[in-house]
């Protein structure tokens, strides 16, 4: 069996929860996180979060710069950047991000909270204009 030995790897900024691993508790801090295993608890990181296919995350809140999900997630996602749901993902919870993309083959239940410009026919400005015109006609 391989003997454990510390290697001078420099500054390890990346974190990974391996496929055979299970974390119960809170994960927070700086750096990217890749989850291949199971996490039960909140994740709050400054960095990109990836939930790989086969991974399982159950938490109240997941906060990260960008979030990519190919596995299973139950919980609210709050991202500064984009949220990507990749084919095969199974997500239950609300998503907030600068952009949200959901591929074909994703199962998703929840609310999307994402800021973008509405097309003119739906935006408030067009409504106001229409109302203005209607008022003029009267």
């Amino acid at each position, binding site marked *: *069996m391989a003997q454990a030995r510390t290697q001078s790897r420099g500054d390890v*900024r990346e*974190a*990974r929860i391996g496929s*055979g691993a299970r974390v119960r*508790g809170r*994960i*927070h801090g700086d750096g990217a*996180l890749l989850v291949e295993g199971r996490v039960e608890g909140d994740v709050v990181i400054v960095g990109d979060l990836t939930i790989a296919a086969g991974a399982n995350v159950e938490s109240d809140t997941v906060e990260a710069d960008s979030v990519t999900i190919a596995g299973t997630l139950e919980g609210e996602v709050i991202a500064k950047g984009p949220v990507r749901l990749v084919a095969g993902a199974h997500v239950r919870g609300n998503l907030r991000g600068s952009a949200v993309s959901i591929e074909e083959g994703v199962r998703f239940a929840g609310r999307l909270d994402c800021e973008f410009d509405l097309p003119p026919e739906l935006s408030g400005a067009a409504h106001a204009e229409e109302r203005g015109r209607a008022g003029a006609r009267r």
Partner: protein
Amino acid sequence: MASTVIGAGITIEGEITTDEDVVVAGTVRGKVTAKEAVTIEPGAVVEADVAGSSLAIAGSLTGNVTAVERVDLQSGSRVIGNVKAARVTIADGAQFKGNVDMDV
């Protein structure tokens, strides 16, 4: 390449359980249980009971340590707690306070 890596900026408050090996370069408070090797890198802060097949410690650890095979307290490490393993080494430059149980 380790299967589970806790990077230098990351803190885990809770329990880590794995069939594979673990490298800690960040902070862990709680408990670490691995079926394979556990490595605590220089600069890591672990306040947890740690169990694994073999343990290499170069960072700071407060808690009890149990290994099936061996525990190596490397130079620069700081360990407060009891160590239980069949083979234990304490390198020159390691700081250690606690009991050693080699199961004799």
